[in-house]
Structure formats: C-alpha cells, structure tokens
C-alpha cells in the first residue's frame, strides 16, 4: 500500500467508516496515521473529558461531524448532581475559532446553553444536523437561533431533553425560503406549539422524512400535517386524544392511508384508545413501534394494534401489555430484533404485569432477537436458562427485576445460574445489566464467559471484592463498568490499575470504596481522573481524621490525556 500515492490510499480509507476500524488503521504506520488524520470525517468522543478541543483539532483538522458524550450513564437516574459538568460551550467556542467546516453535532448528556446554540448557528455555514439526546440547559430561544441562522439545516432532533419552553415562536423562525428539512423531532417540548407555523413548515419541506410532535399538537392538526407530508417515514404522534367526535378520527384515517412510506411510529403521549385503530392500515409496514409512553392504552388495544405488525423489528412497550400480550408479539413479530418492556408502576406496587413467562415466550418466538431491556417483578433461573437456549444471539441483555435482592421466586435461590447461562450461551454479548439476588458466583461466570462484554451494570449484587475482581480480570474488552450499592471495595479497585487504561470509565456509588483507596489509585495512575462526588458536606471528609477509612459515596474515574478538568464544581473532588 505504501507504493500508492496518498490519494489512492485515502480513497480506500473512505470505505472504512467505523471509528474502531479507523483507529486501527491509524496505528499501522506513520504514513497511514497521517493520511487517516486528514481524511477523518466523523469523530466520536465517548467522554468529553478524555480529550480537549485543541487536541481534537490538532489531530483531525478536517472533520465534519462530531459526537460528544458528557455525563456518566447513571446521571439518567439522578445519581449525578446538577452542575457536575459536561459543558459543550468550550467545544463550540474552539471549533468556531478554528476553520473546521462543522456540519453535524451529536451530543448526549451534555449541558447546552442558548449561548452555545446561538454561537453554533452563526459559526458554521454548512451546518446541517443537530442531534441532542438527554441534554439540558437550553430553551426554545436557542432553538430559535438554530432555526433562524442555519440555512442548510436538515436535521433538528431533540430526544428526551430538558428544555425550558418559553412558548416563543421558534418554529416561525425558519425562513420562508427554507425548504431543506428532513428530520424534525420536538417531542420533548412541554409547551404550546404554534400550529400554523408548524403546518406551513411541513408544507414547504418536501424532503421531510421524520416528524415527531409534542403533546401540544392535537388530533386534527395531526391529520392536516400528515396530509401535507404523505412521504413521511418516521412519525411521532403527540397528544393523541380526542374526546369529542369521530370526525377528526375519519380525517386522520384518510391521511394515514396515504402514508405508504411510514415505517416507524412513536409518541402517543396521551392516547385515546379508540383512535389507535386509525393506524391499522399502515401497521403491516412498520418496523419500529414505540408505545412506551402510552400508559392510558390498555393491553387489549395494544395487542390489537400489534397483531397487524408482522414486520416489526423494534418494539418499545409498557408492561401493561402483560405476558399474554408478549405471547401475541412472539407469534406475530417474527422479525423482531429489539424489545424493550418498561414498567408502568414505578412505585413497586406489586402487580405482576409481565413475568418470566413473557420473556420465555418472546425468546421462543423471535429467532432474530438480539437486544432486550426487560423490567419485571419476578424471575427464575429456569426461565433464564431457557431464554439462553432459545436465543444465543443476544448482543444486549438488560434485565431489571424491580425489587433489589429478589431471588428466584420459585426456588428462592440467587439468580447466578440463570445469568450464568446467558453469558455462556451468548458469545457475542456486548452489554449486560444484572439484577435480583446475586452472589459473587455470577461474576465468576461473567468473567469466565463474557469475553466480548463491553458494558456491565451492577446494582445491589455480589458479596465480596472477589466478585468485582472476577469481572476485571476476565472481561478483557470491558469499556464501561458501573456499580451501585454493592459490597466491592479498595482491594478490587486497586488490584490492577492498568485495567483502567483499556476501559473508558468506572462508576462506583454506595459501595465499600474508601477515600484512602481512591487517593492511592490516583497516585498510582496519573492518567486517570478519579472524581469523588460528595454532595453532603464538602469538608467533612478531611476533618474527622479517619479519611483513610472514610467511605466514598460516589466515585467516577475515567482515562484522560488532558489531566484534571478545570470546570469541576465544588462538590466534585478530583484526586
């Protein structure tokens, strides 16, 4: 290859798109490193504190798309206090100062301000795509800047963000001449929507493929929007209720029938069950169905809808569907690859909506299943062993038994054997979340068999440090390990410091790790940022003199090439 001119090599590299592969290519030799650097279009940074914008620009001067992730995963569950970090502003400032022609920005769990969005909208002439997932810190004013200034915007995709809705006119900020919209997702906005502006925008967007509406878009507006955009592929219905009459329903049915390209359906933030049947004509084409916010639709209506969805590949649903409903899914959706069953009752009221039977039925009926997230009240080892036999192809297996420490409800045994069967059978397993009563044994199995495992989530499990050691020693490909409320301490944490070079991050909260242990780790491993999140009393940890043995409530460590971050709030100690 070295006898070819650079342009030829670069052309070959164009066919290599995955980050991992490109990273590998760059390690082959200096020449390839250089060529790859200048031709990298998409940069993925899994932890925004592992590197800084200056170094990013030095390495990849010509990229067009940047993906950044900020807070650790457990921030989704309120375990990371407000103000911890993950600010995008310094990144946008640095990119704006440079001459990089940014076209796409994808952020997850980051703090974004209106100022950031304004700067973004003004700094990159060819900016096309903004995807914000689980971000916070901005308002509809920021969206107005994007709408006003990004002439070539194709995608504005806001997923599950906390947005301060000023109920302004951001939708009317898209210029009249602007017609390039492909994706518009504002489902997470809480406030009123300017329906007139929305309808006009949709009417002048012939390339619109994905439209996800918020609660404030009522049924008749939905009908009009669908009539304007029959080419739609991905639809998020907002508020889907109509108490008054069926005229709206008829108009909607007529509009829906024309949407022959529709493949993906979600939303239903509030839903009138009787109108759900309006979607039956398009169900046979659907590949993705998300009804996980539709708590007001009972199981039988859900089932009636799903019976028509023979081509479904991804299904997100609430446990109100019940085991019977899951049996219908198993017999109807033979193409199913991903299933997520969310809990309706978060208070642990004890209703057994879905059990191990539903999971077994799905595993038996859906041969292509490779990803599952399943919330349930009870589980047995026997069921998990059967699931493992039926489905050896799992890549992601996340089981959440709602009550911590709950054993096999038939034998009262820990669930070690069940999860053991899963990791032994599923040779390609990359992500695993365990729950229920678990001893160190399950971690022995995970360390032995889960050779491809990259992400592991542990809560209320294990007995001694041995458990964590089995995992750290066995899972060579581990990247992200997150542990809460488990009795793992300093011995496990400090056993092999070099492990943290190949891992992106480790989270441990409410475990047995001490401040002394964390300090020793920080000393041994200067390439790590070891952060202690201490919300209670900033000074209590040093004062009482027992700091060596003082247990740390939350510890988050991650590898970095740029040392201690400068934007940490007072309640975060970086050792």
């Amino acid at each position, binding site marked *: 290859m070295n006898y070819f001119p650079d342009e030829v090599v670069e052309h070959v590299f164009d066919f290599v798109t995955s980050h991992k592969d490109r990273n590998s290519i760059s390690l082959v030799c200096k020449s390839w490193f250089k060529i790859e650097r200048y031709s990298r279009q998409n940069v993925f940074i899994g932890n925004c504190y592992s590197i800084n914008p200056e170094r990013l620009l030095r390495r990849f001067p010509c990229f067009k798309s940047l993906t950044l992730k900020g807070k650790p995963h457990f921030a*989704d*569950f*309120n*375990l990371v206090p407000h103000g911890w970090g993950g600010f995008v502003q310094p990144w946008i400032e640095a990119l704006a100062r440079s001459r990089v022609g940014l076209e796409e920005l994808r952020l997850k769990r980051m703090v974004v301000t209106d100022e950031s969005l304004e700067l973004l909208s003004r700094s990159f002439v060819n900016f096309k795509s903004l995807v914000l997932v*689980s971000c916070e810190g901005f308002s509809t004013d920021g969206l107005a800047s994007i709408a006003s200034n990004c002439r070539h915007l194709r995608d504005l995709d806001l997923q*599950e*963000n*906390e947005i301060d809705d000023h109920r302004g006119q951001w939708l009317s900020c898209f210029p009249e001449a602007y017609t390039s919209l492909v994706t518009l997702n504002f489902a997470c906005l809480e406030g009123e929507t300017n329906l007139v502006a929305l309808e006009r925008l949709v009417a002048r967007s012939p390339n619109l493929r994905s439209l996800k509406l918020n*609660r*404030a878009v*009522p*049924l*008749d507006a939905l009908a009009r929007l669908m009539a304007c955009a029959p080419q739609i592929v991905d639809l998020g219905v907002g*508020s889907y209720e*109509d*108490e*008054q*009459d069926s*005229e*709206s329903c008829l108009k909607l049915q007529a509009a829906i029938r024309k949407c022959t390209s529709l493949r993906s359906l979600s939303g239903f*933030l509030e839903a009138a069950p009787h109108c759900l049947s309006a979607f039956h004509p398009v169900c046979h084409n659907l590949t993705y169905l998300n009804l*996980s*916010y*539709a*708590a*007001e639709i009972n199981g039988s209506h859900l089932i009636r809808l799903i019976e028509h969805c023979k081509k479904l590949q991804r299904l997100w649903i609430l446990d109100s569907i019940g085991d019977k409903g899951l049996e219908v899914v198993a017999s109807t959706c033979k193409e199913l690859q991903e299933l997520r069953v*969310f*809990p*309706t*009752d*978060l*208070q*642990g*009221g*004890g209703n057994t909506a879905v059990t191990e039977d539903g999971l077994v039925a799905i595993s038996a009926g859906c041969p292509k299943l490779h990803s599952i997230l399943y*919330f349930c009240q009870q589980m047995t080892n026997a069921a998990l062993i059967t699931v493992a036999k039926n489905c050896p192809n799992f890549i992601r297996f996340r089981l*959440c038994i*709602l*009550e*911590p*420490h709950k*054993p096999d409800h038939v034998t*009262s*045994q*820990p669930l070690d054997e069940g999860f053991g069967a899963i990791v032994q059978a599923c040779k390609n397993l990359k992500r695993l979340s365990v729950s229920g*009563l678990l*001893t*160190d*044994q399950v971690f*022995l199995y995970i360390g*032995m068999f889960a050779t491809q495992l990259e992400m592991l989530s542990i*809560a*209320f499990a*294990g*007995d*001694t440090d041995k458990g964590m050691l089995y995992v750290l020693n066995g899972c060579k490909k581990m990247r992200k390990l997150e542990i*809460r*409320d*488990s*009795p793992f301490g300093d011995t496990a944490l400090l056993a092999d410091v070099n492990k943290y070079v190949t891992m992106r991050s480790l989270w441990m909260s409410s475990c047995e790790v001490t401040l002394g242990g964390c300090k020793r780790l920080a000393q041994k491993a200067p390439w790590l940022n070891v952060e202690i999140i201490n919300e209670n009393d900033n000074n209590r940890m040093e004062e009482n003199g027992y700091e060596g043995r003082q247990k740390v409530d939350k510890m988050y460590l991650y590898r970095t090439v740029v040392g201690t971050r400068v934007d940490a709030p007072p309640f975060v100690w970086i050792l």
Partner: protein
Amino acid sequence: MEKGGLELEITELRLGLPGTEKMMKKRGFTEMIMTSSGSNSDQCESGVVSTGCDVEKANESPVAKSQVVGWPPVCSYRRKNSCKEVSTTRVGLGYVKVSMDGVLYLRKMDLGSSQGYDDLAFALDKLFGFHGIGVALKDGDNCEYVTIYEDKDGDWMLAGDVPWGMFIESCKRLRIMKRSDAAGFGLQPRGVDE
C-alpha cells in the same frame, strides 16, 4: 489446574444455606432504606447487619422502597412523562386539561402560571380565542358559558367559589360548558352562598 481451583471456589461459595450468609455480610437494601429514612440507625454495628427484622419492616412499608434514589433505573425524562406520574403528581400544579363545548380538541393549560381567577379567565380566553369565558367566571348568571372543574374527589364544581389556593390544589381538569347544559349536569351544590 485452574479449572480445579475454580471448582473448589464454587463449592466454597455454596456452603451454608442459601440466603443467610449473604444477608449477614452485605449492607441490605432494606437496611439502607431504614437508615436513610432516619430510623434504626443503631443497626449498623461493625459492618454486620442483621436483616431479619428489617425484612418485616420493609413488608410493612413498601412505600419506603421507592425512596431509593435512581431505582428502578428508569431515566428521569421517562419518569416525568409516565402517565401515572402525570396524573398523581400534577394535580393542582402545572397542567390540567381544558375542554370547551363545541371545540373539537382538548387543550392543556398550566394552572400554576395564573395568579387568580381573573388571570385564569384571561388565560382561558386566550386559549380558546373566545371572549366570554372571563365573564362566565366572574358574573356567573349573565353569559352563555359556565366554567366548571373536576376536583380531586371526582366531583364537578363551579369554578370561582372556593379561594384560589384551594382551587388550584384540587382542580384536576376544567370544562367550559354551555349554561343550558349545566343545569342537568349534576354539579355539586355551591355550599354557602346559595
């Protein structure tokens, strides 16, 4: 060799009745709940926790389970939007549904953003683009529409009778109804000023 060693470990871990050893060693979930809610703080003795009575206590108060931060692991956006949460935590605060006779679709409005009945009347006018609602609230007898609300007990009451604070705490939804229809509706009697 190694496998032999592992087998020994396996048998080691299996000694004793299932359930007892583990409970003794680790900080039980139930114990954590009890200490975090302020009771039974003296049960933490040199790391050994007896969870016998804790289990009973946990059964008595299942509500305590839900106080563990971040459990079950459902992301906060989904928690806020799960309908059960919406209906139980948003009574009186934030959004209530407002329907008006003759209007095809429901609207939602944020009660918390109004300061009093006058404010509410103005907001309703804006919501439906209709000028008569404000009058309905204040004068009662002189206009075509009445504003009624469903309270926490499921009863329908005329809006405007109770003090504002009491109203926003108990109002679950609003309905603007034609006066002519209201007569046969079964509104709860006014109480004092009839």
